């Protein structure tokens, strides 16, 4: 069964969803703003400094691309476009993965910056990154499993799937075109976006030693703790 009331327009539906989001989740909206501001501040601190190699240049490019994707994802999620937001969060997550890969294998970075470069498959990047972070084979497997799980979950929103189609159906089982507020989907979207911001913050600090020594880097831990505390309180279990 589906419905489309005549008075509903795209603009009206977006406004309704946004108002409900602000009414019920103003803390989460503020946290999203705080996290993105923190990330942008990190990039701003690099203004005027010279990058020292292709890996740093590439990291800056992917971090800025990821910031844009996350900014868009937050705006969409606040307006009831959750599947669309999660699809862009996957892009941001993949930018992070590419940046982490370039940090682990800096000699690869010049190749990746070429116009027609073929970037490695995400599974290859996950393998390299987890092996590089881990101190043991077991730990590496554990990291890789975590990275794959998050990527796999986000990918469910990039291609047609049961989860995507469910977002076109309201709680009362009516199918409806246009966005509408859904608490669970909002929290899941924000959870994935917040976590991606944290990953990007640590990548930035790791890639630029001047940041790692700054107060900004110390704030990374505070921000991560804040997100973890929020997750324990608010986030429904998704298995990713």
């Amino acid at each position, binding site marked *: 069964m589906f419905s*489309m009331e005549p008075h509903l327009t795209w603009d009206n539906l977006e406004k309704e969803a946004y108002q409900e989001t602000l009414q019920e989740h103003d803390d989460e909206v503020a946290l999203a703003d705080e996290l993105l501001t923190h990330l942008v501040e990190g990039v701003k601190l690099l203004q005027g400094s010279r990058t020292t190699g292709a890996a740093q240049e*590439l990291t800056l490019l992917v971090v800025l*691309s990821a910031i844009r994707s996350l900014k868009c994802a937050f705006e969409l999620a606040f307006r009831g476009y959750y599947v669309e937001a999660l699809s862009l969060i996957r892009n941001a997550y993949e930018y992070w993965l590419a940046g982490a890969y370039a940090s682990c294998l800096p000699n690869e970075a010049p190749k990746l910056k070429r116009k027609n470069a073929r970037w490695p498959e995400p599974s290859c990047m996950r393998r390299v990154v987890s092996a590089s972070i881990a101190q043991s084979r077991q730990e590496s497997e554990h990291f890789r499993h975590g990275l794959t799980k998050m990527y796999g979950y986000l990918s469910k929103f990039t291609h047609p799937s049961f989860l995507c189609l469910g977002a076109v159906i309201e709680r009362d089982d009516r199918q409806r075109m246009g966005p509408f507020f859904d608490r669970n989907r909002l929290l899941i979207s924000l959870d994935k976006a917040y976590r991606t911001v944290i990953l990007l913050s640590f990548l930035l600090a790791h890639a630029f030693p001047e940041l790692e020594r700054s107060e900004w880097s110390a704030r990374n831990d505070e921000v991560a703790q804040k997100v973890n505390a929020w997750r324990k309180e608010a986030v429904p279990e998704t298995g990713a």
Partner: protein
Amino acid sequence: MPAQLPHGSTWEDREHAVHRQAWQYHSDEIALADDLLSHLMRAFRELETVKPLDDAQELTLLLVGGAANFLRSAHNLALDGYYVQALSLVRNAYEYWLAGTWANSTPQDAAKLREESADWPTPSRMKQALAAALAHDASEHDSAEPALGGIYHDLSRFTYPSFASVSGALDSKGTLRSGPFYQRRRLLAFLDLAYETATLLHHLLEQSFPSLRESDWGRRSDELATKVAAWAARQAAEAGEGGSQ
């Protein structure tokens, strides 16, 4: 490569500035995109009284509803200067159209695809199957599959990390920019692919619901398709003039 970062203006200020520029230079084109999206919404109203729906029709509506949401989101982002993100979302909409067209060509599978455990075919498998279904002979098949894959391939460059996707943060001088900025070429690329995908979705609805084809909605679809074709022809002519100068 020092980054060019904001001085005094907020991110939102710059989104508004890009938005104003988009309307200033492309008001007719944006209005056409709005019309194409509103037309999709009107189809849902038209179909409200059509009952019962078979499995393939139900699935088509779900996919078109999802695709329309992707297109509308993309439209909002493109007007604010987030072209790479917008193009990435158009790819999702195109894939939904591909899935809907595929489901219509194999209606016996439509109910299964709505199940939680459903294993959806990959885009390449759907393209192959559709090319085979659409072609009358081997030579048509040879051209149909690349045509279906061409748009998808173009759009996929903006979904994964690549030079095309990360260069959205570089302006025409190669300077790194943190926030959105107006780029005519990218906005036109977005409009071109968004128009095409919206038109494909209109066709899909007409195929799945023949009553739409005979209604005012169907006539309006034709008008919009004519406008899109005229716009594409003007773009091609301008590109030809630019290339010959």
